[in-house]
């Protein structure tokens, strides 16, 4: 068993002991006459127990979260120190290497040229009237592409030359009898960022006795350093945790006197615990937003915001070869926004009337027995996994729509269409709207209905003229919540709407949505610095903003409604 686990067990034992010590001491302090205590004996027990266990467990939790990172940092800085002599030697070689300097200089010049051409193109694009010259623009584009290709080639040559020199320095050092730790450090420091991470995690694995994907003398040397730091930190934490527990126990034990307000302290700690839980949830949300935001900013440094938000072409392909056609990809997200809007619109056209009317029937007309069975059944609809809806759309609704429209004389109707995805999504959303609206309608006070009936209004007059207007804000809130659900829905659309990023208002064509594209962009092998992958984060950010705005409006509306009738 690991040291940490043993320490955790010991702390638990001390915590339980602390409870009995605190309790017994409180009872003892008043000679068993517990009425004289400010707080019940148990509260004294809880108080001592909490201060025995809490700091120690917080420390252990911090170790669990940050321990690995600390070990990595320490290992890295130690290896860096070891490798400093070799790094210096490499720097010298790089400076004196004519070939490397030449490649770098060429790459810099070519980059500047690309930027200069880019400026020219910008000027030409924004020009008006006679100055407009599409042919010249075309030519510039061609030139820029060529310059860019040569620049990339020069950069790659420079990187290659550098790698050669690194290898040379490494093998010379090895021949000269440098230690494995020096070599490991050199390899680590010279490696690109992602490989550095890989190197360290391999070293960690080896140190923990697991088989690594690759093993080398350098890695083993690094692993020994890792193991050393791990042990040190582990024992340090173990001792500190025990000190915390014992210190807490002794300190709080001495506080237990009859007048001690243990209950208030315990209540405050419980409040703190509850606060912590809610803060944790909020922090998670903030973290998600920030991760989206930072990746999106990286994306927008390669693709301008205006092009992303207003561009009409979406084909996020990145070329495998530099001279491939359309190598830069197109990141105009308007077709995705339009596709999302189209499918949402179709879904709402299905869900709002059906959901609302069924809510009215359930709340105003249906007998209690019908209501008791119908409402749960309707809510089961909400519990069906969306994948199953996807099957239904793909295998049943899609072909049916194609059959119907072919019969009506339309040509080339596809199975995967916005219509089939929208219809099925609408069905999925019905229970959302009907259940929420039903609640809202039910919460319209009976006195309003009575008032209307007493005026001689019929049931339908009462519903359309009194109940609906009273429930309207809540219903609008329900619909907005349903819209944000529809906007965020993915599975049905992936399966049933196809993947073509068509900019169309025709529901019989296949379209694609924001969510589907995020899935497409992030599944499979990806490099996390290409615009293709990063665009997924920008899309996610847009999606987040849309649903956030919708939810805020919905909650506002619902809130205003509540104020009125409670």
């Amino acid at each position: 068993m690991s040291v940490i686990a043993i320490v955790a067990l010991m702390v638990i034992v001390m915590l339980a002991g602390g409870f009995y010590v605190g309790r017994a001491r409180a009872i003892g302090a008043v000679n068993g006459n517990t009425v004289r205590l400010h707080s019940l004996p148990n509260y004294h027990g809880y108080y001592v127990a909490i201060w025995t266990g809490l700091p120690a467990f917080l420390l252990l939790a911090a170790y669990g979260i940050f321990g690995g990172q600390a070990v990595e940092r320490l290992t890295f800085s130690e290896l860096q120190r070891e490798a400093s002599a070799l790094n210096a030697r490499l720097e010298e070689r790089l400076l004196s290497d004519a070939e490397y300097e030449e490649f770098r200089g060429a790459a810099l010049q070519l980059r500047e040229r690309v930027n200069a051409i880019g400026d020219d193109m910008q000027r030409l694009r924004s020009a008006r009237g006679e100055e407009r010259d599409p042919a010249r623009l075309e030519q510039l584009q061609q030139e820029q592409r060529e310059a860019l290709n040569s620049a990339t080639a020069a950069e790659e040559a420079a990187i290659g030359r550098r790698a050669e020199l690194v290898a040379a320095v490494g093998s010379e050092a090895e021949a000269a009898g440098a230690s494995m730790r020096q070599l490991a450090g050199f390899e680590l420091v010279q490696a690109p960022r992602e490989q550095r991470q890989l190197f360290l995690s391999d070293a960690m694995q080896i140190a923990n006795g697991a088989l690594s994907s690759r093993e080398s003398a350098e890695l083993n040397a690094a692993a020994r350093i890792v193991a050393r730091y791990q042990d040190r930190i582990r024992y340090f934490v173990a001792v500190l945790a025990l000190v915390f527990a014992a210190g807490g126990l002794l300190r709080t034990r001495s506080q237990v006197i009859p007048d001690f307000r243990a209950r208030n302290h315990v209540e405050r700690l419980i409040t703190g615990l509850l606060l912590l839980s809610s803060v944790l949830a909020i922090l998670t949300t903030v973290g998600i937003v920030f991760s989206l935001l930072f990746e999106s900013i990286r994306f927008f440094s390669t693709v301008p915001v205006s092009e992303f938000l207003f561009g009409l072409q979406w084909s996020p392909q990145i070329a495998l070869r530099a001279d491939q056609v359309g190598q830069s990809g197109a990141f105009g997200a308007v077709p995705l926004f339009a596709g999302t809007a189209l499918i949402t619109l179709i879904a709402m056209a299905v869900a709002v009337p059906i959901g609302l009317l069924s809510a009215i029937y359930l709340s105003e007309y249906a007998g209690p027995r019908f209501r008791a069975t119908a409402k749960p059944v309707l809510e089961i609809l909400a519990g069906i996994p969306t994948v199953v809806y996807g099957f239904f759309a793909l295998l049943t609704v899609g072909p049916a729509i194609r059959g119907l429209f072919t019969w009506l004389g339309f040509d080339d109707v596809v199975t995967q269409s916005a219509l089939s995805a929208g219809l099925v999504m609408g069905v999925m959303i019905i229970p959302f709207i009907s259940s929420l609206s039903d609640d809202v309608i039910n919460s319209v006070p009976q006195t309003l209905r009575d008032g209307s009936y007493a005026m001689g209004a019929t049931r339908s007059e009462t519903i359309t003229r009194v109940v609906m207007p009273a429930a309207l804000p809540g219903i609008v809130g329900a619909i907005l919540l349903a819209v944000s659900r529809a906007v965020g829905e993915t599975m049905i659309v992936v399966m049933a709407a196809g993947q073509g990023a068509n900019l169309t208002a025709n529901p019989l064509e296949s379209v694609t949505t924001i969510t589907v594209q995020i899935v497409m962009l992030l599944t499979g092998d990806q490099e996390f610095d290409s615009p293709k992958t990063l665009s997924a984060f920008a899309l996610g950010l847009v999606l987040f903003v849309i649903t956030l705005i919708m939810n805020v409006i919905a909650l506002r509306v619902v809130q205003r409604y509540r104020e009125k009738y409670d």
Partner: protein
Amino acid sequence: MPDNQSHILDQNAGFGETEPPIKVAARDVCVAYDGKQALNHVSIDIPDRSVTAFIGPSGCGKSTFLRCLNRMNDTIEGARVTGSLKIDGAEVNDKSIDPVVLRASVGMVFQKPNPFPKSIYDNVAYGPRIHGLALSRNDLDGIVESSLKKAGLWEEVADRLNDPGTSLSGGQQQRLVIARAIAINPEVILMDEPCSALDPIATAKIEELIDELRENYCIIIVTHSMQQAARVSQRTAFFHMGTLVEFGRTEDIFTNPRDPRTQDYITGRFG
């Protein structure tokens, strides 16, 4: 029980000559909710153009009887009404009577002010609109204005008819609801504890209004306040445990009750 009833009817018949004609005549009205008896053989004659107060402890059946008069018990599931109940000689519980038509002539004001979530104007215009009483916009404006005037609310809201009805104060809301009831020109107005949610000043205004409305309508008011019954009504009926115990001139009931239960209730010995 038969003795008791004849006694009530006799007493009632006593002021036949000088008093206005009988508007509502009930004979052996019984109400049961889900088989549980709430009202037992109530027989009563309520005169027109006067205020009749129903008093009695909670659960005595006074509101239940009130709701029989405009068939509001129909909206409650499991409610069963038997016996004969005539307004102007027409049987209320008759199958051929459409409750919608009946309720157009029997208005009702509830315990809690319940203005609809509409403007002040639309609240008052609600009844005339659903019954098609106004032929033109001018007509409707006239009905709204006269109803609000009759309810004593016109001066306070004339310049903000488009504000929501819920923006008024509690007492104003209750007068708005009365204006709404008057707008369809009913013959009988039922009031179910109309002041129980109001402060004394608003209550005084409503009572004043009830006193004015008495000139033109048959008003039946359920109240828990015996002072209110004494102030606004000409006749008082005391209900207890689902039966009508005593009915007569208000001053007689309060100064010289015949039944010991009435005596106990008005002197505050129970209830």
